[in-house]
């Protein structure tokens, strides 16, 4: 359970940090993703016994994968919370990725794009929710409790 919480926290951090370096520090998506992930990968390369072997193997992978979510353009998504949620979704997909696709290059990117596309739907679904709320309000106005309808 501790491992799962740590990986989820790191994927949230990775996605948001990459987006920050990419958009706010204007370093571009490739440098933001690659250099942040390089720092993490180098740490575990030189200190392979610093943590549990499961974490040493999976932290760099989760970090680089979640950083792909943070490569999103601000034109599409500029909300840090949603980007972080995208990172968490990536982590959940990665942890259950089919064994059939083990060792396929680009599988991390595919997981990241699925997570990001899912997150990008939230504002669209949210718009429709506002519409639903509007219909509920209209219904309340038309059919006030206690008001007799003839």
């Amino acid at each position, binding site marked *: 359970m501790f491992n799962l919480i740590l990986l989820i926290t790191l994927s949230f951090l990775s996605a948001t940090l990459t987006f920050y370096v990419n958009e706010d520090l204007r370093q571009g998506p490739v440098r933001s993703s690659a250099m942040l992930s*390089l720092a993490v990968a180098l740490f575990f390369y030189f200190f392979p016994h610093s943590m549990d072997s499961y974490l040493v193997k999976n932290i760099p992978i989760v970090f680089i994968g979640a950083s792909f979510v943070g490569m999103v353009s601000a034109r599409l998504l500029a909300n840090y919370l949603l980007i972080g949620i995208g990172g968490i979704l990536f982590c959940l997909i990665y942890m*259950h990725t*089919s064994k059939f*696709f083990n060792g396929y290059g680009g*599988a991390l*990117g595919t997981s990241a*794009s699925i997570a990001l596309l899912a997150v990008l739907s939230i504002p669209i*679904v949210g718009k429709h929710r506002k519409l639903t709320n509007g219909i509920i309000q209209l219904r309340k106005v038309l059919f006030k409790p206690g008001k007799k309808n003839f």
Partner: protein
Amino acid sequence: MSWNKTARNVFIVFLLIIQAIFLFAIFKENTRSLGIAALMLILCILVLVTYFKGQIHHEDHAYEHIFVVLWIPVGAVTCFYLNHLLKLGPVLSATIIGSLASFIPVIKKSSSYLPQLPAAIYCGAFIGMSSTGVAPNFLFILTASFFTAVLLILSKNLFAGVGGKLGTLAFAGVVITSFLYFLISSYV
């Protein structure tokens, strides 16, 4: 229907199929875990919502230049070399390639060509992250690079700014090559 529009629609449907197969494989392996199966179904619906309602593509269709995608095999072969021959592992190899590639535009800041190379090289590096069980040799990597290059040419204005696009294209290239290898080994 014009050629541009056909190419655009075929590409979008192709990528949707690739992502659907990826999610379905997870769903199939986790049918006993209700939570995971439900999550995959919800993700599938949300992805479909973005495909149909999201503003993820540019209106006009454009093609990536061939001199840009020529760098995909360079990234792929170098990453594969670092990953398997120097045994640095997939993440370290891809991040070294990506970090170095990101500084290419610094060579000549006025160039309009150089800023396009880091993405192509990083995309290639994802192909080089494949394990030897999937990609046994450099020929496989070069073939996967070719298919990925074709997909990148077609998708210049599609999924623009979507994180994970390069990885998805690399994955598609590797899947097509694996399928091709499977067909050849079955019939030859």
